């Protein structure tokens, strides 16, 4: 009984941790959406900011990766 309760907590915790990835999705969408909006206003400047966009995506994504890491740790390490 005790062990099943702990297992349940582990799985629920891992599932809840995955909601953090939704936040990362919002962040990445925000970065790309603003990039596209800016690129349509000034297409000639768009190419030069491509690398900046990818760096922004990578930083926004990093926080989602931490929640994924917490989920993995709960599933396999705790």
């Amino acid at each position, binding site marked *: 009984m005790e062990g099943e309760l702990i297992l349940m907590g582990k799985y629920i915790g891992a599932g809840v941790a995955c909601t953090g990835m939704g936040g990362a999705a919002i962040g990445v969408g925000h970065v790309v959406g603003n990039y596209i909006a800016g690129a349509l206003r000034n297409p000639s400047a768009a190419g030069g900011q491509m*690398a900046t966009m*990818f*760096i922004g*995506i*990578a930083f926004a*994504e*990093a926080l989602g*990766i*931490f929640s*994924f*890491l917490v989920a993995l740790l709960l*599933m*396999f390490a705790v």
Partner: protein
Amino acid sequence: MSENVAEGPSGLQIHPMDQFVVKPLFGGEHINFYTPTNVTLWMALAVLCVIGLLVLGTRGRAIIPSRVQSVAELMYGFVYKMVEDVAGKDGLKFFPYIMTLFVFILFANFLGLIPMSFATTSHVAVTAVMAMAVFITVTIVGIVKNGFGFLELFWIKAAPLALRPMLALIEVISYFVRPVSHSIRLAGNMMAGHAVIKVFAGFAGVLGLGAVAPILAITAVYALEMLVSFIQAYVFAILTCVYLKDALHPSH
């Protein structure tokens, strides 16, 4: 990872994580550090592909390049421009290192997409080694180039004085978290994509010949994965350039 087996009530069995098991190539159970496993096999194949493209492909040194040579030249020019744009002119000394990282990760990712192959970059152990190497290199370069000036990276002169200790704390944490996010970004993306394909393959296996929807889904996810493979290699290389720029010019 036998805990992760999903068993539905109708005998639906999907083992999405079984493809990531490290096995010795020539039988046996024990894995020592010298044992040839499927990881070493696919990493060696990635290295062989890189050699084939970049060394054998450009052997002719033709003025009008052949198809293979022009692909190799395109790749060289792409990475060179990226290093120059992001890390600056003095970052070009590290161009061979970043080119090596980019090409190796790119080929490891693409070889992992071949059906029945093994995605080496989906293992955190593989990517963590590369990320730690980048982290240690960048830290040493920063300290050697700037001495104590390297600490200006954490002490932001542009911010008001009252805010600076708080910002310094945040900057220190974000600096030491870099190798974690750098390695898990690549491994997580590759692992998640392959697991998704495997889950859809499990559906297709249950439905048999009528599995139109899962096969269409696999095709779509596979195309997405090819894009992700390239973008993750690109992101890994460009973040290395960003870290290098921070080390070379620590003042914001």
